């Protein structure tokens, strides 16, 4: 972490986080900062708790110990109202989109709009069409049900719903998992483009080294109960065997060589 970075506006501040299920400790005194306007990629071997970390930040999992502040607000001890107000400032994209299957894509996007704004139905339809266009889906997607969409389209539709309330902070859980390389590249470009034009801060959990290279400003590597963070260039010099293997493996080398 550079000196300059420490003075930047911190959006998510994690200190001393401990997550454990029964006797299995997943996170042991974990510290992590997410700065405004950056895309942070979180990587790690299976079982190091990448998704658990994301779920803990957004409040789906209660940590055993430690503090998590989002926008300076500690979620665990906040009043219900303060907690909800913070929740409205972030959007979450789950792995397969997690769209409500009984509703069309447009209705999915309008769920938060209907609950938290007093827009007319006409305006909500317009906003839904806008979000659908924003994530690069064709206009007729609005009237389709999630089951009628391909996996890649479901992810985009899920992203459109996550963006419904114009959040400042976006959580993405393995956005490119299960996509073909071309769709994955397009999705990376989409995230980068949206981050730049909407000024988003992005917390991105991934396995995909191409995604890391193409989109992330900084990377956090979850190791066995510890964490390292930095740019790809700085992490490559880290002697940790897992990090070395991750970045210097065949896939890693190929991806880095392109960049």
């Amino acid at each position, binding site marked *: 972490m550079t000196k300059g970075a420490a003075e930047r506006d911190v959006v998510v501040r994690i200190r001393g986080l401990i997550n454990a299920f029964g006797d299995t400790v997943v996170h042991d005194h974990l510290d992590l900062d997410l700065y405004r306007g950056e895309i942070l990629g979180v990587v790690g071997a299976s079982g190091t708790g990448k998704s658990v970390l994301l779920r803990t930040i957004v409040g789906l999992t209660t940590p055993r110990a430690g503090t998590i502040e989002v926008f300076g607000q500690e979620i665990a001890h906040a009043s219900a109202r303060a907690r909800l107000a913070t929740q*409205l400032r972030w959007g979450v994209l789950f792995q397969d989109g997690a769209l409500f299957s009984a509703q069309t894509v447009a209705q999915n996007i309008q769920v938060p709009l209907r*609950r938290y704004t007093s827009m007319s139905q006409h305006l909500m339809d317009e906003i839904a*069409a806008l979000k659908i266009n924003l994530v690069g889906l064709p206009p007729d997607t609005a009237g389709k049900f999630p089951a009628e969409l391909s996996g890649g389209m479901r992810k985009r539709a899920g992203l459109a719903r996550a963006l419904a309330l114009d959040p400042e902070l976006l959580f993405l859980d393995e956005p490119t998992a299960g996509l073909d390389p071309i769709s994955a590249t397009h999705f990376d470009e989409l995230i980068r483009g949206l981050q*730049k034009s909407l000024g988003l801060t992005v917390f991105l959990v991934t396995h995909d080294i191409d995604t890391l290279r193409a989109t992330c400003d900084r990377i956090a590597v979850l190791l066995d109960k510890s964490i390292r963070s930095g740019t790809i260039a700085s992490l490559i010099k880290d002697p940790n065997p897992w990090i070395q293997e991750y970045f210097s493996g065949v896939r890693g080398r190929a991806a880095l060589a392109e960049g």
Partner: protein
Amino acid sequence: MKHKTLLSRARIPATLSIEHGPTLHVVAAGDWVISEVARLDGQLAKLSAAAALKATIDARQITHLDTAGSWLLLRTQSALEQEGLPRPELLVPSHYADLLAKVSDGLAFHGAVSGRKGPWLYAFLERIGRETTRILAQGYQIVGFLGQISLETTEAILTPQRALPWPALTTQIEDCGLTALPILGLLAFLLGIVIAYQGAGQLKRFGAEIYTVNLLGVAVLREIGGLIAAIIVAGRSGSAFTAQIGTMRVNDEIDAMQTMGLNVVEILVLPRVLALLIVLPLLTLYADVMGLFGGYIMTYSDLGLTFPAFLTQLQSAVTLSTLMVGLIKAPVFAAIIGLVGCFEGLRVERNAESVGRLTTRSVVEAVFLVIVFDAGFSILFSVLRF
């Protein structure tokens, strides 16, 4: 409505002022963000080009802009152009130019679609047609399925090297039969009480309360015992069959079995249907006993009938064929429940939602068919004077 106040993004309230004249000036200022757009949308609805020859949209005073606010600006620009004015100039702070470009990129300004809507009559007729074809197609498929099962069963019995799946069969017998005993016993007992109570109440008025035992015996043995057993089993086991097989379908387990050359019907369907064929007659007999016992408790407390007197009266009222009429229906009900449960399970699509939908459907269909067949049996037996 208190939720609507939670979303307060605007530090400076958004404002909109409109100056009419030869040049229409639309001036936007403040935070044009999602929590403000509902209000702004109402104000913009009144905007019209009227006598203006050209228009400008000055949004340079905007302090904060998001995609929803951008939409309103872009839509206003497009709407004024639609009214015949030259395309109005849209001025925004330079750091929002990127956002506006991103939002307007490839966007259609008209014809936003939100869902599938049509005249309700069409939707209604379409639905009737859809359901009718679905039911007919399903009836056809389920008969095919029955044929397939019969074939597999005969093959399994006739081919010595292909033994019946005994472990699966015993597990299913335990799951469908043994574990159903407490709930079935309780319900049959309660129904026995209810029938005896109602019967005694009516028959007392004729001084014929002793015939409560006849009513109880015939009703429980011929109809109630078998029906309640079948309904409980449909609810417990038929639904479980659909859910288990359906979940395997969602997890691609069925596909995996097929690629290994395993016979899905033999492995999954056969043990379940056979288990029900064995278990349901036994459960029916058990329900009969519990129902009669419940009825006896009621006649004892209401009419003061002793147990020997109850048995004597029961013996004069029912014969072995009364019991057999009830028991003979059980294998048919078992086949219906097992077939429908497995059939719906195999029809589950590869999403979790269809598991729930088809599980509900399997129970409803099984109970429906059981009662329809029961009515059919009643007619058949009355024709045969059985």
